[in-house]
């Protein structure tokens, strides 16, 4: 299969706000359950181990007309909760049995309670993760949270979720994370063959199809992409930061690349790469997941950084590792975590002479001209400096 064919399939999945693929997966077996989740991170292994599919909900994109969702929010609140409610209110999520709302910010947090009121028959859980990274403090708390999640899902599905099953699921997701890492490495290495449009859509596909299918899709894509021989353009290499929750329209990502920037790393759909290393597949699986979360996980503004010296260092190391020439801080309007964190990150970049620019978007932003101009000017200025 060619990369074009694979990406065409991804695009269909991306545009399908009725989640047909997940519906079909569920319909094939009456015992199957689907659990929706929002950014940034949930331990999908536990759902998987219980025979459930986890469905990543990232808002409604730029095509969905939001009527009912808007009725619940003031103008100064970001867009993702509105379109998510719209998805719910219009029956697009009527096959979803449960929803997980990770502790990313107060808007998503409160949405968990709204969901309880709106869909009283759903299993709804606010998934609070530790901001304390010591094993016997945050670690113990988190293990107990994972255990509560496991029990809640057992009750929902009627299936016991055994340690063995979780260990197996960790294996499957270890492979998925490995493939995603490879994909990111491949893009950084040959961005002319692996456009960000493709990387983005491949990531998105992983939100809405079974992980096994996603694994084989990633393999096939990379095999095909490596064989391509696209000419390398005189683009600069940049990293996108701040887009970990509400997603930009695909056009925005394309516009940045068209304006002369190769995106060599980003924070879209971090759930695919949150755990950075191989999670051990022997021993207590919840302890293993907790250890990975505490000690080997990615960074985002939704996390507390317990030492000032460490603020922004994750981003800085990514810049170095990916040989990036600049950072584009692209955050959704009214995104508390990203916008509160941004001044600290820009300070860190300034300290290390990393060029950067900032702008805001909404998932339904329509005007790309300013984005193209800013990204284009940024690319030009980097080329002039170097």
């Amino acid at each position: 299969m060619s990369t074009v064919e694979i990406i065409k399939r991804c695009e269909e999945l991306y545009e399908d706000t009725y989640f047909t693929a997940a519906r079909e997966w569920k319909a094939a077996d009456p015992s199957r359950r689907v659990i929706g989740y929002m950014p940034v991170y949930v331990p999908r292994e536990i759902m998987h181990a219980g025979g459930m599919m986890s469905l990543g909900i990232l808002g409604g994109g730029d095509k969905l007309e939001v009527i009912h969702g808007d009725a619940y929010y003031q103008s100064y609140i970001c867009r993702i909760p509105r379109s998510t409610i719209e998805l719910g209110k219009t029956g697009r999520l009527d096959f979803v049995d449960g929803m997980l709302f990770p502790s990313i910010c107060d808007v998503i947090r409160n949405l968990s309670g709204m969901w309880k009121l709106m869909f009283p028959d759903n299993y709804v859980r606010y998934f609070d993760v530790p901001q304390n990274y010591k094993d016997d403090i945050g670690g113990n708390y988190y293990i107990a949270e994972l255990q509560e999640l496991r029990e809640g899902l057992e009750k929902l599905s009627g299936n016991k979720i055994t340690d063995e099953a979780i260990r197996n699921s960790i294996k499957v997701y270890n492979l998925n994370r490995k493939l995603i890492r490879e994909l990111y490495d491949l893009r950084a290495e040959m961005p002319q063959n692996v456009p960000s449009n493709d990387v983005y859509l491949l990531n998105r596909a992983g939100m809405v199809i079974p992980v096994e299918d996603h694994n084989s899709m990633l393999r096939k894509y990379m095999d095909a992409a490596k064989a391509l021989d696209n000419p390398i353009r005189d683009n600069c290499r940049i990293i996108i930061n701040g887009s970990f929750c509400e997603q930009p329209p695909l056009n925005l990502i394309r516009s940045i690349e068209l304006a002369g920037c190769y995106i060599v790393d980003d924070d879209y759909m971090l759930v695919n790469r949150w755990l950075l290393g191989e999670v051990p597949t022997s021993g207590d699986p919840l302890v293993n997941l907790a250890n990975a979360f505490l000690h080997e996980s990615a960074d985002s503004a939704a996390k507390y950084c317990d030492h000032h010296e460490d603020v922004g260092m994750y981003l800085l190391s990514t810049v170095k590792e990916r040989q990036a020439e600049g950072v584009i801080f692209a955050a959704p309007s009214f995104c508390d975590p990203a916008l509160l964190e941004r001044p600290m990150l820009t300070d860190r970049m300034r300290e290390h002479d990393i060029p950067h620019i900032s702008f805001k978007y909404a998932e339904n932003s329509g005007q790309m001209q300013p984005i193209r101009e800013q990204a284009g000017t940024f690319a030009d200025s980097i080329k002039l400096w170097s």
Partner: protein
Amino acid sequence: MSTKIETPTDSHGSSEIQEPQKDSSMLMQKEMINSNYDALTNTANNGKKVCSTFVPGNLNELIQSFGLLNNLPETNAIQNAMRQQSGGMIQTAERQGHSEDVCTYVKADIGMMSKGNIAPNGKPMPNPDLLLLSYTGCFTFMKWFELLRQEYKCETVMLQVPYQGDGEITQNMRDFVVKQLKEEVIPALERVSGNAFDIDKLRENMRRSAQAEDDLVWVLESAKNKPTPIDAYFGAIYYLGPIFTAFRGTQQAVDYYRVLRQEIEQRVKNGQGPITPGGEMTKERYRLVMEGPPNWTNFREFWKMFYEEGAVVVASTYTKVGGVYDQGFRHDADNPLESLADYCLGCYTNRNLPKRVDMLEKYVKDYEADGLLINSIKSCNSFSAGQLMMMQEIEKRTGAPGAFVETDLVDPRYFSAANVKNRLESYFQMIEQRRQGNMIASAR
């Protein structure tokens, strides 16, 4: 969100309107708040160490047991807003790269630092020795302290208070908070203060807290009377000053709430309405439950829109951000750390939306309110995200009409008096018209 109160005018402020209340409780309250600022700005002489912390989930009994002073950045932002200083501070912070979209408490705080960190008494504020991040019910707190830490480079300790996602406190949450208190917070307080933890001092403080809390609850519940002797939002904000800030657990607070209670008892006995900046309210026309924090930049102007129409707030949720005492919680000296954990876990914005709706429903019914009014605050997603749904739920459950106005905490650019007044007038008239409609209907 979060917040605390303060005497809006003092010798340094612009005292544009007369004092809302000249009772002895008022004078006591003012003196207390001023004395804390005086202590804070006099550390060079008194040798005291300063702990900065937030109002919701603040551990004043514990902080004071180590002899530390308590400084609350939200309170400073409010003070600055009430004396019309916050606008410039916010703009200073925005010029430094802080987004116009985020919380204006944070920006007012950062702007205040840039302008020399002058306390409301006109003297420079000392740098904190400890940042005690009580991460309770508000995401912004976490980043706020990261930003402050960047400035002060001082010791910072975080107390993560898990959110009541399912509307209850689980043992795991309580254990997590207690463990952090024992292994993170107390050691940090010991390090900074140089004093060893003394659980008996803590117990003593907590015993006093509970005493003051009893009287405070009595005062807040006096609004069930008709007419209510207090305004449970604009007026109550003054009453909460001591207990939301550096005075919970002190003898001063115990005395203050005793005196306050006696005053209100007298008002109830006399059948008096609440005191407002426009004098005593003689005719109570609309009884409201209020959700959301106040606007501070135009506090008096906002209040006036109510009392001029005979509208009085009989219950509010904002007065529960620093502790929800009227639902039964008391600091418990017999289980000090567990009780502190439950205090933090139970603060209003740490309760999930369904619980918040339940509480409002109870208020509308118990206080026989005519409706629910939401002051939706741009800065505060913790409070604001979901309020439109809360309003719908309350309308559905109680039949009382809701209304919605939008302002901000300390950003003067976000207070449109004409807009707010227009909505309030429409709302009051609607209540009146519905009332008449009901009277006609029942006469038939």
